[in-house]
C-alpha cells in the first residue's frame, strides 16, 4: 500500500542571523519526508539542528531556502498557517514551559479553546485526550504538583486535544527519570499504533530509537544517515563521529565480536540478543 507523504522537506536550509555575511546554518540541504502513520526518529547530538526540524515542521520557523510542505500545503503560505499548526502538533523538552494553565484539564482545553470549538466539543476532546495519556484521574489536579512525567503527559494531551495528524516530540524525555521516561514513551508508542498518529521523535537516547520505523541522523546541520534501525546502527563508526552511540544491546554484541565471538550483526532488541546468544551456545 502506497502511503502518502504527510510532511516533506525539500533542500531545506535554515540560517540564524540571515543578514550576517557568513550565516550560521542550523540546517543545510535537508531533504526527507514522513509518511502518514510512520514512526520516524531523528537522532543527533546537542546542537546538530534537530530542534530546528521540529519548528520548521509546523511552520513556526520558515526555511531560508527550500520548501517544507505539510499535507500538500507549503508552510510559507500564510493562508495555510493555522491549518498546518492544527495538523502538526509539537511537544517540547521542558513540560514546565509549555503548560499554560494551573489546572490539568484547563490546560488540555487551551488548544481547542484557541480553535474556537463549541463547549461540548472541547469537553469531549479534553476527556478523550486525558484518557489516551492515562491522566483522567488527575484532571482536576494543579499542574505544578505533578511529577515531570505526568506534566509531560499533560502537555501531550494538550496537543492530542487538537487532533493533529502528526506530533513532533522534541526530546520529550530528556528531563525525566526512568519511570517518567517509560510512561511517556509508552504513551507516544500508543498514539502511533492505536490512534495512527504520525510521530516524529527527536532524541539522543539510543535505546528508544531501536523501535523506530525509520531513523534520520543529523550531524552538524546535515543528514548524515537515514534508514531502518538495523541499517543505521550497523554504521557504528559514523554514529560515533556524530557524537552518538549504539543501543546497549548492540554495544554488547559488538564487544562480543571484538573478543572473537562470531556474534551476528544488527542485533537491537534484548529478545533478539537472547535468541542469538542461545543459538551460539547450541552451536558450540
Amino acid at each position, binding site marked *: 500500500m502506497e502511503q502518502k507523504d504527510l510532511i516533506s522537506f525539500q533542500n531545506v536550509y535554515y540560517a540564524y542571523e540571515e543578514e550576517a555575511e557568513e550565516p550560521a546554518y542550523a540546517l543545510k540541504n535537508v531533504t526527507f519526508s514522513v509518511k502518514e502513520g510512520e514512526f520516524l526518529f531523528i537522532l543527533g547530538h*546537542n546542537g546538530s539542528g534537530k530542534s530546528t526540524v521540529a519548528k520548521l515542521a509546523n511552520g513556526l520557523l520558515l526555511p531560508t531556502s527550500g520548501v517544507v510542505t505539510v499535507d500538500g500545503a507549503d508552510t510559507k503560505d500564510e493562508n495555510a498557517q493555522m491549518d498546518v499548526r492544527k495538523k502538526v502538533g509539537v511537544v517540547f523538552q521542558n513540560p514546565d514551559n509549555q503548560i499554560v494553565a494551573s489546572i490539568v484539564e484547563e490546560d488540555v482545553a487551551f488548544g481547542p479553546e484557541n480553535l474556537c470549538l463549541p463547549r461540548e466539543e472541547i469537553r469531549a476532546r479534553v476527556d478523550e485526550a486525558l484518557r489516551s495519556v492515562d491522566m483522567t484521574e488527575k484532571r482536576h489536579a494543579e499542574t505544578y504538583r505533578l511529577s515531570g512525567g505526568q506534566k509531560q503527559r499533560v502537555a501531550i494531551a494538550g496537543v492530542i486535544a487538537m487532533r493533529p495528524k502528526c506530533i513532533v516530540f522534541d526530546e520529550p524525555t530528556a528531563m525525566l527519570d526512568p519511570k517518567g521516561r517509560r510512561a511517556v514513551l509508552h504513551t507516544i508508542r500508543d498514539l502511533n499504533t492505536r490512534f495512527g498518529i504520525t510521530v516524529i521523535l527527536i532524541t539522543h537516547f539510543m535505546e528508544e530509537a531501536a523501535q523506530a520505523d525509520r531513523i534520520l541522523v543529523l550531524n552538524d546541520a546535515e543528514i548524515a544517515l537515514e534508514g531502518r534501525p538495523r541499517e543505521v546502527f550497523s554504521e557504528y563508526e559514523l554514529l560515533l563521529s556524530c557524537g*552518538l552511540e549504539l543501543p546497549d544491546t548492540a554495544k*554488547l554484541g559488538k564487544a562480543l565480536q571484538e573478543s572473537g*565471538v562470531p556474534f551476528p550483526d544488527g542485533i537491537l532488541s534484548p529478545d533478539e540478543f537472547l535468541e542469538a546468544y*542461545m543459538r*551460539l551456545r547450541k552451536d*558450540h
Partner: protein
Amino acid sequence: MPLLEVQNISFGYGHHTPFEVQAVKDISFAIEKGECVAVIGHTGSGKSTLMQMLNGLLKPESGQVLLNGENIYQNKKTAAKARFQVGLCFQYPEYQLFAETCAEDIAFGPKNMGLSPEEIRKRVLLASEIVGLPADKLDVSPFDLSGGQKRRCAIAGVIAMQPEILILDEPTAGLDPAGREEILSMIGRYRKDRGATVLIVTHSMETAAAIADRILVMNGGRLVLSGSPEEIFSESEALLEMGLDIPSFARIILALRSRGVELPSAYTLKDAARVLSDGLRGGGRL
C-alpha cells in the same frame, strides 16, 4: 573514622498543610575518604533533600550529620563552614551561572571563602583544568559557552572550593551521549588524580554502575538498599518495583540466567562481554 557520617536524619516539608511530605525518614550511612558513592532513587524519593542536609544548607529535624566526627549543625559557624567542606553541585548547575566571565563565576566560591587573590587565581586554573574547560574560555561570558561547557564551568565553580567531598546531583542530566561520557570520565579522572571523595545523586543506573564503589537506594524517603553495585543489581525486581531500572547489561545476563544459562553477574559493558564470551567457551563442557 568515616569522612562523612549521617545518623538517623529526617526532614519534612509543609507541616500542617494538606501537602505535608516527609521527604527524608531516619536515614543513616557513612562515607569513607576516597570512596565514590551513588545515591539512587526516582524523583521525589528524597534524594535532593538528603543532599542539602549533608552540606549545612538544611538542618535535619532530627539526627546528626558528622564531618570528620564533628556535627556540622553545632552552630551557625560550623554549618556555614560545611558548605565549603562539602561541595554541592545542583542539578542543571549551568542555570546558576551569573558572572561576567567564566573565571569570575568559578571564583565565586573561593572568594566567599575569603581566600587571597593569588590563591583564588590558582584554584580557578586548577578547577578549570580538572573539568577540562579550555583556558581561552576563562575570559568569555559563561552564557556564550556550549551546553556541555556551561555544565563543566559550573562544576568547576564547586571544585574550586576544594571540598573534602564533592556531591553532584544528576551531573549528566540532559546531555547527549558524548557530553555524558565527558562528564563521567572527568569525574573518574578527578577521583584518580586527587583521591577525591565523590557522592553522586542520580536516577541513572548506568551512571551509578559506571563509576560507583557503593550504591545507596532511596525510596519514599527511606534508605532501602545499600551495597556494592553487584549486590544492588542482584535485587533487580525490587528496583523495578521502585520505578528504577537496572543497567541493560545486567538485565541481559539476568534474562539468560532465567533461561538456565549459568553465568556470573556483570553490570558493565566490559564485564558483561567477558562473562558472555567465557560462557560460550565453557558452554561445551555443560
